[in-house]
């Protein structure tokens, strides 16, 4: 595969991917190239295949046809270098586990389980750093069931960050955060975006923010133009895109939106 040397190396490279659940087509011929450092938001209606696409990138599902490369290798091999924040943070709320232990779970596979004493200290430092970054260190002794949706969301992002991933995948991360917390949340993601590529999924176009570097629409098909001109028309169209999709069932339209600064 040849690559243009002037363009940043893609961290996610999806070519001609098809996927179906029980014969029901979910994704059809999807192409997506995400360059390092991108802040990509995937929008589209519920059931349009956004979560499926994330699970394909994580290697939790395998495509029926097509190829996926993540960080230059196959998704299952790259999964431990990818941070994942799942859609439903409210599962298992009665489980006897404190916030600290949830975050520490993010270090599994990085020598988790049995380890030498030095590594243990290192792990503890990484857990603390991620929790402080997300502002949940003070909540570390609380049981997960005692946290609000927003607090739990932050704890789950800390869990995704604790292994210092190169890519951060967020599935409907804004769903459990109230309106006034959202701007702040986007500032936080923009801050994280300095060192990590972000792909966030949402069904709510109101979630878009000037912090976002590019937008793609997923409704069984997806098309994503990396780079390209920025026009108000494109920006406006990007916001309307999922509405069109719902109304007409017409798939793919892709836009590069405004980059702030």
């Amino acid at each position, binding site marked *: 595969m040849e690559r243009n040397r002037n363009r940043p190396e893609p961290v996610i490279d999806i070519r001609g991917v098809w996927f179906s659940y029980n014969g029901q087509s979910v994704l059809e011929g999807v192409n997506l190239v995400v360059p390092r450092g991108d802040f990509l938001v995937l929008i589209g209606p519920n059931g349009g295949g956004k979560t499926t696409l994330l699970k394909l990138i*994580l*290697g*939790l599902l395998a495509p029926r046809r097509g190829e996926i490369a993540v960080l230059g290798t196959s998704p299952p091999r790259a*999964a*431990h270098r*990818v941070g*994942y924040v*799942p859609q439903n943070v409210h*599962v*298992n709320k*009665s*489980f*006897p*586990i*404190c916030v600290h*232990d*949830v975050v*520490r*779970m*993010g270090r*599994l*596979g990085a020598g*988790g*389980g*049995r380890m030498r004493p030095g590594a243990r200290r290192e792990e503890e430092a990484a857990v603390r750093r991620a929790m402080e970054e997300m502002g949940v260190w003070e909540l570390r*002794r609380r*049981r997960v*069931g*005692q946290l609000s949706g927003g607090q739990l969301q932050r704890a789950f992002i800390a*869990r995704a960050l604790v*292994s210092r991933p190169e890519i951060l995948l967020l599935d409907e991360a804004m769903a459990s955060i109230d309106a006034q917390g959202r701007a702040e949340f986007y500032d936080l993601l923009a801050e994280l975006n300095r060192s990590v590529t972000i792909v966030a999924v949402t069904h709510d176009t109101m979630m878009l923010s000037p912090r976002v570097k590019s937008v793609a629409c997923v409704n069984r098909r997806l098309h994503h133009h990396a780079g390209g001109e920025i026009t108000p028309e494109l920006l406006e169209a990007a916001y309307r895109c999922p509405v069109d999709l719902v109304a007409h069932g017409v798939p793919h339209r892709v836009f590069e939106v405004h980059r702030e600064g």
Partner: protein
Amino acid sequence: MSEILHMEFMRHALAAGLLVSLVCGVIGTLVVVNRIVFLAGGIAHAAYGGIGLAIFLGWPFLAGTLGVALAAAAAMAAVTLRARHRADAVVGVIWAVGMAAGIVLIDLTPGYRSDLMSYLFGSILAVPASELGEMAVIAALVVGVVAWFYPHFLAMSYDPEFARIRRVPVAALYSLMLALIAASVVIVIRVVGLILVIALLTIPPFIAESFSGSLKGMMARATALSALFTVVGLFVSYGLDLTSGATIILVAAAGFGAALLWRRLHPARAGGAG
């Protein structure tokens, strides 16, 4: 009370009860948080087929029962991992077939009838020293394996999808958990019998869950509660001349009721540290 402890069978019974409590606390916790009580019941009843097989072939109790329980666990692991939506029906079939095979095998054994009840309701007062040693080995093995893989069992139980992303071999770990349940069930049957295995495996962890801040804490509390119920039940059954297994379970049920009441009176205190 001290004269009770002078009797050898009573000392054996207490030792067996404490071993079983340790296993119930640790494995019962995994059963409860993974919501596989029905599956554990299926393994226990399939184990009855193993008891029948052991009696029919003249094998030692442990060999036949453990073998069949492990085979049932392997079959259930295969079904749950490959066709989750069919799992409960298949578990139900294995449950019934195991039980029926056990009864028929005992029918076919010439001149054998007497011990049927003892396996259904347990025979904690008749545990010989030799078997106590075997029970201790199994208990140590079960608890040791869980301790070794604790972070992985924790991740699998709380969030299996995330565990997979972190390269935890979830399918293998799940099968290992069912095998540990099979081994545990075999020694718990000795104490409270087939019918009551599930009660001892679920009641103490269920009480412990709301008072524990970690899976480890839940295992420790469930073990302590299980030991308390077993010892109290044993003394009550001795004093009142009742079936020991059933008495132990009634004591556990009383404890369960007391915990519910306590939680209703002190709702804010549930889920503390540890």
